[in-house]
C-alpha cells in the first residue's frame, strides 16, 4: 500500500495534514466531549456552537476534543482565535455559548469575565517543541491557563494531548509527535535496548503496585516460548478513578504507541486492551483509533518496514472489579469467569493461555513513547529518586476544583487538595481523605503533608493505588465510608476463596453493627483478628487488601469509632444508629429476624 507509514518523512507528511486541522489559522471552536463533558451537556453546547456559526455564516470549525481534566468546569468550550490565543470557557450552557460566540462574531469581543483561562501555546511533549499562539489585547486580562490554581504544578506527560486533539484523528495525534517513539524503537533499536531505556527511565507500573516496568518486560522477554502476549489493563474498576477513561477518550494513540513499543521489546505478536464495559465511548474511540492505525500500517504486518508485526484488539469487560486484577483479567480474556489465579506462576512466565504475558495499566503504556523520544534521563529527572515521572490523580469529593491532575511523584496531598483542588468546598474543614481506591480507606488530615512516592506514604499503611483522592468534609462519617467500602468488597468478591468471600461479609456486618449501635468492645477485637486473617490468607490482592479500610479506620479514627460504640452516637450525624434494611449479612430470614430485634 502506498499510504502506509514507513519512514520519518511519512510521519512528517501526516503531521502536516494534522497540523492543518489542529491549528487551522481561522477560528476553531473546541468542545470537550469526553464522557464527563457529555454528561454535563456538551452535545447541546456543540449544537449551539454549530448553529451560531451557521447563523453568522462565520468562517469557523467546531470540533470535539477529549477531557482536559478540569471536570468540575464541564462542559468546556475553547475558542482558538485567528492569530490569537486559545481561550477556555467553563460551565457552558447553550445560552452562554450563543452569547459568547455572538459577541465575538458581531464585534470581535472576548468577554474576560466569562473566560476560564488563556493558553499562550501548546507543548508538544513528544517532540519537545511547542506551538505558540498569538496574542490579542482584548484577551490579555484573562488569566493564563498554566497559572490557574488548578494547573499550577501540573506536568502533562501522560495526558499530553488530552483536551487538545480530536481523538478521532490520528493525524492530529501525529502532529503532536505520536508514533515517533515507536518509529525510533522499531527501526533504530534492538528490543534489549528498548528494555534498557525503560529500565533507565525508572518507569513503574501505574496500576497501583508500582512494579518496575522494565523489569517486567525483561522477565517476559527472557521467558521461554515463541508466543507471547501483551495486555493493556483498562478495567478501571476502582471507584473514584477515571484517568484511564480520560486518557483513552482523549488520546488513544498514546496507549497504542506504547503497546507497539512494548510488543517489540517483549516479543509479543498480539495484544489486547481490556476495557470495562461501563466506558462505551472509550471503547468506540479506541476501536476507531486502532482502525486508523491499521490503515496506516502502524499496526499489523511489517510495521515501519522493520519486519515487526503486531496486532491489537479490544476486549470488553462485563462489570467485575476483580477483572482489574491481572490474573482475573487474563481468565476473562480466555473466556472464563474472572476468578484470579494463584501466583506464582506470574503472568510474565505463564499468563494468557499459559504463555508469557505482560499486563500494564493504561497510564504505564501511555508513558512509554515520551521516554523513547525524549530519553530516559529526561523522564527520570521528574518525580522522586524512587519513583520517576508523573502520574494522574483524580481529585474529587468535597473539593472546589474537582478533576484530574497529572503531577510528578513527590508532591503532597495538601498541595493537591489545597493548591490545585482549591480547598474544601463551602469552606469546611477536611476531616479525612479516602485514597488509593477502596482498599486503602480513609487517612486523617495529619498525613496530608507526606510526600507521595511509589510506596507512597512511606511507613504508613496507605498507598495511592489507582490514584483516586476523595476529600471528605466534617459532614461525612468514617464508619459510614468504611462500611460502604466493605460493601463494595462484599459485592465484588468473586467467591473463590473462603477468607475473602466470608470475611468481607462478616466485616461488613460488624461495621454495620457499629453504625447501628449494636457493637461492643469485642467487635473491634474481632475486626482486628479477621482483618489479619484475611490479609494473610486470601488468594488475590482483592482479598488481601479488603481489610485495608478497616485497619486504617481503626488506626486513625479510633475516637470516632469509640463514639459510635460507647456513646451510640454518630458525631457527623450520618449513621442512623438504627438497623438498616439493606444488610449484606445472612439470608433473607436472618435479615428479618434482625429487623425485629432492632425494632
Amino acid at each position, binding site marked *: 500500500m502506498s499510504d502506509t507509514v514507513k519512514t520519518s518523512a511519512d510521519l512528517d507528511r501526516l503531521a502536516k495534514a494534522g497540523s492543518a486541522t489542529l491549528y487551522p489559522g481561522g477560528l476553531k471552536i473546541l468542545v470537550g466531549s469526553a*464522557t*464527563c463533558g*457529555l*454528561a*454535563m451537556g456538551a452535545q447541546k453546547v456543540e449544537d449551539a456552537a454549530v448553529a451560531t456559526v451557521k447563523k453568522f455564516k462565520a468562517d469557523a470549525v467546531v470540533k470535539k476534543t477529549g477531557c482536559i481534566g478540569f*471536570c*468540575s468546569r*464541564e462542559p468546556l468550550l475553547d475558542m482558538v482565535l485567528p492569530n490569537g490565543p486559545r481561550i477556555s470557557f467553563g460551565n457552558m450552557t447553550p445560552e452562554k455559548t450563543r452569547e459568547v460566540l455572538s459577541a465575538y462574531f458581531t464585534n470581535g469581543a472576548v468577554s474576560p469575565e466569562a473566560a476560564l483561562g488563556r493558553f499562550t501555546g501548546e507543548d508538544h511533549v513528544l517532540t519537545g517543541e511547542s506551538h505558540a499562539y498569538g496574542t490579542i489585547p482584548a484577551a490579555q486580562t484573562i488569566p493564563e491557563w498554566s497559572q490557574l490554581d488548578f494547573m499550577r504544578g501540573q506536568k502533562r506527560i501522560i495526558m499530553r494531548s488530552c483536551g487538545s486533539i480530536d481523538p478521532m484523528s490520528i493525524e492530529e495525534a501525529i502532529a503532536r509527535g505520536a508514533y515517533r517513539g515507536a518509529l525510533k524503537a522499531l527501526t533504530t533499536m534492538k528490543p534489549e535496548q528498548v528494555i534498557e531505556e525503560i529500565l533507565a527511565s525508572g518507569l513503574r507500573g501505574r496500576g497501583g503496585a508500582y512494579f518496575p516496568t522494565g523489569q517486567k518486560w525483561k522477565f517476559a522477554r527472557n521467558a521461554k516460548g515463541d508466543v507471547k502476549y501483551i495486555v493493556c489493563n483498562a478495567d*478501571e*474498576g*476502582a*471507584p*473514584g*478513578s*477515571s484517568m484511564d*477513561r480520560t486518557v483513552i477518550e482523549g488520546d488513544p494513540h498514546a496507549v497504542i504507541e506504547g503497546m507497539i513499543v512494548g510488543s517489540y521489546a517483549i516479543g509479543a505478536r498480539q495484544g489486547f486492551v481490556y476495557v470495562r*464495559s*461501563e*466506558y*462505551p465511548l472509550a471503547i468506540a474511540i479506541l476501536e476507531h483509533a486502532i482502525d486508523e492505525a491499521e490503515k496506516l500500517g502502524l499496526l499489523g504486518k511489517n510495521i515501519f518496514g522493520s519486519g515487526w508485526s503486531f496486532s491489537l484488539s479490544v*476486549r*470488553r*469487560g*462485563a*462489570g*467485575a*472489579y476483580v477483572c482489574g486484577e491481572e490474573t482475573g483479567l487474563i481468565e*476473562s*480474556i*480466555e*473466556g*472464563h*469467569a*474472572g*476468578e484470579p489465579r494463584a501466583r506464582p506462576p506470574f503472568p510474565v512466565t505463564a499468563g494468557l*493461555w499459559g504463555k508469557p504475558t505482560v499486563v500494564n495499566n493504561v497510564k504505564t503504556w501511555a508513558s512509554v513513547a515520551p521516554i523513547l523520544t525524549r530519553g530516559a534521563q529526561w523522564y527520570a529527572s521528574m518525580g522522586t529518586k524512587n519513583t520517576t515521572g508523573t502520574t494522574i490523580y*483524580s*481529585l*474529587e*469529593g*468535597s473539593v472546589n476544583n*474537582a*478533576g*484530574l491532575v497529572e503531577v510528578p511523584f513527590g508532591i503532597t496531598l495538601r498541595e493537591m487538595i489545597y493548591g490545585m483542588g482549591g480547598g474544601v468546598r463551602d469552606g469546611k474543614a477536611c476531616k479525612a481523605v*479516602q485514597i488509593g481506591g*477502596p482498599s486503602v480507606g480513609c487517612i486523617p488530615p495529619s498525613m496530608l503533608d507526606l510526600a507521595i512516592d511509589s510506596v507512597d506514604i512511606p511507613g504508613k499503611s496507605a498507598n495511592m493505588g489507582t490514584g*483516586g483522592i*476523595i476529600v*471528605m468534609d466534617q459532614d*461525612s462519617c468514617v464508619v459510614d*465510608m468504611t462500611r*460502604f*467500602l466493605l460493601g*463494595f468488597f462484599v*459485592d*465484588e468478591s*468473586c467467591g473463590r476463596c473462603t477468607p475473602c468471600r466470608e470475611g468481607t461479609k462478616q466485616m461488613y456486618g460488624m461495621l454495620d453493627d457499629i453504625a447501628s449501635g449494636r457493637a461492643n468492645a469485642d467487635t473491634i477485637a474481632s475486626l482486628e483478628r479477621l482483618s489479619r486473617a484475611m490479609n494473610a490468607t486470601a488468594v488475590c490482592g482483592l482479598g488481601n487488601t479488603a481489610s485495608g479500610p478497616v485497619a486504617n479506620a481503626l488506626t486513625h479514627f479510633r475516637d470516632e469509632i469509640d463514639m459510635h460504640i460507647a456513646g451510640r452516637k454518630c458525631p457527623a450525624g450520618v449513621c442512623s444508629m438504627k438497623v438498616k434494611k439493606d444488610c449484606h449479612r445472612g439470608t433473607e430470614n436472618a435479615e428479618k429476624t434482625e429487623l425485629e430485634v432492632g425494632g
Partner: protein
Amino acid sequence: MTVDTIKETQPAAQVKKAPVGAVLVCGGGIAGIQASLDLASSGFYVYLVEESPTIGGNMARLDKTFPTGDCATCIISPKVVACMRDLNIEVITMAQVKNLSGEAGNFTATLSVRPRYVNEDKCTGCGDCVERCPVRNVPQEVSAVVVEEALDKKDQDLLDGLVEKHKGDPGALMPVLEAINRIRGYLPRPLLEHAAARLEIPIAQVLTVASFYDKMGFDAPGRHVIQVCNGTSCHSRHSQKLLAALEKRLGVSEGGTDKQGRFTLKTVRCLGLCALSPSMRVDDVSFGRVDISDLDKILGQFK
C-alpha cells in the same frame, strides 16, 4: 449383573474354646471395619462382606470429619490396611448376603459374589486391564448437541455474525456473550444454548461465565436501563438519596423494572464520572451532578 458364583460359608464348628465361632459383618464402611477389627482381636474369625469392589465406604471419600475437622483419610487408611492384613478377617468384596438360615450361634449364610473379570490371585491393582478393556474402550460416536428451540431470524443472524467474527479465537466466549448481552439487553436462554452448541462449549460453562459478570443478565430489562453510580465519590455526594428518589418514583427497588416496562433500575460501581458526582446513566447517556429535581427532565427524554 448376573450371579456367577455362589459361595457357601460354614461356621468353624470344630473350635471348642470360648470365645468360639465366626462372625459375619455386613458392610465394609468405617463401622464395619472397626467392628471386624474389634471382633478379630476378641478372638472371632470374621467374614467382612462388602457390596462394592473395595472396603472403606463413604469415609474414604471424605476430606474431613465433623465436628473436629480431623483428616478422614488419616483415620481410615490404617484401619483398612489392618483389616486386609488380619489373618482372622476374610474380606469378601462385590458380594451380597442372599440368605441366612439357622439359629443364634449357628447360622449359615449364602452369599452371591459378582465376578471381577480378573484373576484375583494374580491381580496387583495396576489398572492396565482398564486401559486395555475391549468392552469399555470402544470409541463412542459423540452426537452433536441439538438445541430443540429454533432461533428467530434476528437472533440467528446476530449469532451467525458473532460466531463468524470470532472463528478460531480460543477466547471467543466472552466477546460473544458480551455482544449478545449488549445488543439484546440480556442473555436469552435459547441464544445461550445455540451459542454453546456453535462454540462447542458446554452450556454449564457458558452459564458459569455468564452468571459471574454483573453486567450480564438472564432476564429481559425494561426499554431503558438506569444505572445509578454507587462509586465512592458518588456515595460521598449522597448517591443513596438519588437512588431512593428513583426507587420511589418508579415504584421498584434496585434491580427491578417498573410496571410499564419502561425503566429498569440498577446501580453500578463507578461510571468514572467521579468529579461530577452524583452521576447516573440512562442507556448510554450519562448525566453528571444530578439533582433530584432534575429527574423529571432526565427521565422525560426516554419514552
